[in-house]
């Protein structure tokens, strides 16, 4: 029952994020557009590029979707409304999202097309830039909660949300999450107008539909992870718990989607330089700072 509710919420959330993305990118608010696009993709031909690596080509989108779903599985929607409340939830989220890299490299390598290939390798560079920022900021969150369980991380924020407790970590996590979900301005693997679609270039029809759905699930997973780790998850007055989680997740997703529209695309070398020369020292400082606060203040 819980699983059914969460899967329904997931499907609804993905649909809303698709509507939001359409609004952010094209400036048109059309609640039916994602459904029409999905049906159109299903009706299209599925072309298999010549001399492709069939295994990698087929596994890429599926693995991406599995990674996104497993990440969502450890995010609580409300107390008790979680697929699996693992004791190592925050770590499991990392482990699941690590497969995004594997899936995108497979999707880039598989079709034997130049643009896809470059898109895949670019994402590897992007991974080296964002990965440490994600894990280091989550460490600081776990230090305060004294647990890696996502539900305990939420309850640890009852007195003060982490966004106020560790604002540096929040900013770093959001930037890294945008890199992980390849949202503009850090959308190097697809890079519209630059790589002719990049890893998406050779996918058509139902395979492209699965790839795009997987991307929406990953955006949702990261937005809800941000809400869980930094914005107090389901905590909030008046409204029921699930409504708070949903509202916070959609607000984070909308912020991430609309932010990218106003920024120029970042080159991979620039993103790497910024996150290693500025981001990682800041993330380490965040850990030390949270460590001192956690020892001095009992909340």
């Amino acid at each position, binding site marked *: 029952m819980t699983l059914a509710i969460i899967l329904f919420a997931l499907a609804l959330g993905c649909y809303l994020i698709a509507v939001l993305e359409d609004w952010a990118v094209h400036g048109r608010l059309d609640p039916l557009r994602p459904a029409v696009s999905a049906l159109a993709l299903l009706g299209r031909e599925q072309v298999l590029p010549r001399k492709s690596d069939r295994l990698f080509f087929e596994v890429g989108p*599926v693995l991406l979707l599995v990674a996104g779903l497993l990440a969502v599985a450890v995010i609580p929607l409300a107390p008790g409304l979680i697929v699996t409340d693992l004791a190592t939830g925050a770590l499991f989220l990392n482990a699941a999202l690590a497969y995004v890299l594997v899936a995108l490299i497979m999707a880039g390598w598989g079709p034997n097309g130049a643009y896809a*290939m470059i898109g895949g390798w670019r994402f590897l560079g992007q991974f080296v830039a964002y990965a440490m920022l994600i894990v280091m900021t989550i460490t600081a969150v776990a230090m305060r909660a004294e647990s890696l369980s996502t539900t305990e991380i939420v309850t640890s924020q009852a007195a003060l949300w982490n966004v106020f407790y560790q604002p540096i970590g929040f900013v770093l996590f959001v930037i890294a999450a945008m890199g992980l979900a390849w949202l503009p301005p850090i959308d190097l693997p697809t890079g519209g107008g630059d790589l002719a679609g990049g890893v998406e270039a050779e996918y058509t029809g139902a395979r492209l539909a699965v790839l795009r759905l997987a991307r929406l699930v990953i955006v949702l997973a990261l937005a809800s992870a941000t809400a869980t780790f930094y914005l107090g998850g389901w905590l909030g007055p008046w409204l029921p718990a699930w409504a708070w989680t949903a509202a916070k997740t959609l607000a984070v997703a909308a912020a991430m989607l609309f932010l990218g529209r106003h920024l120029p695309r970042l080159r991979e070398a620039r993103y790497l330089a910024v996150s290693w020369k500025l981001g990682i020292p800041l993330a380490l400082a965040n850990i030390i700072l949270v460590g001192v606060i956690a020892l001095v203040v009992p909340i």
Partner: protein
Amino acid sequence: MNEITQYAVLFSLTLGTVGFVLAIYALARAIGRLRAEPAKDVPATAGALARDPVWVRYHAKYYGYALLFLAFDMEMAFMYPWAVVYREEGLVALLDMGVFLAVLFLGLLYGWSQGALRRQ
């Protein structure tokens, strides 16, 4: 739910996802098949086959970062258990990890000074 059940749920979620994708593919196949036309399967390289093979060695110009990343990623294996018991251990934990992170950070600074943090 004990741990085995939790992982069983996650595993069945994985299998269910694969089944869902296969169902979508079957639906798309039921709607229509691919019409075989010449040159339809050429990858998107301006309509012509690439002159050179695509599967070649790609110069990973970020390898300096990648090597440093390995060191930092290993360090994270220690950080998670440390973070969970941090408040119990108190000041000792802060000092222990402070020294460890300081050494690692010096490594980052050394790598930076030697030009590891740039596009090679």
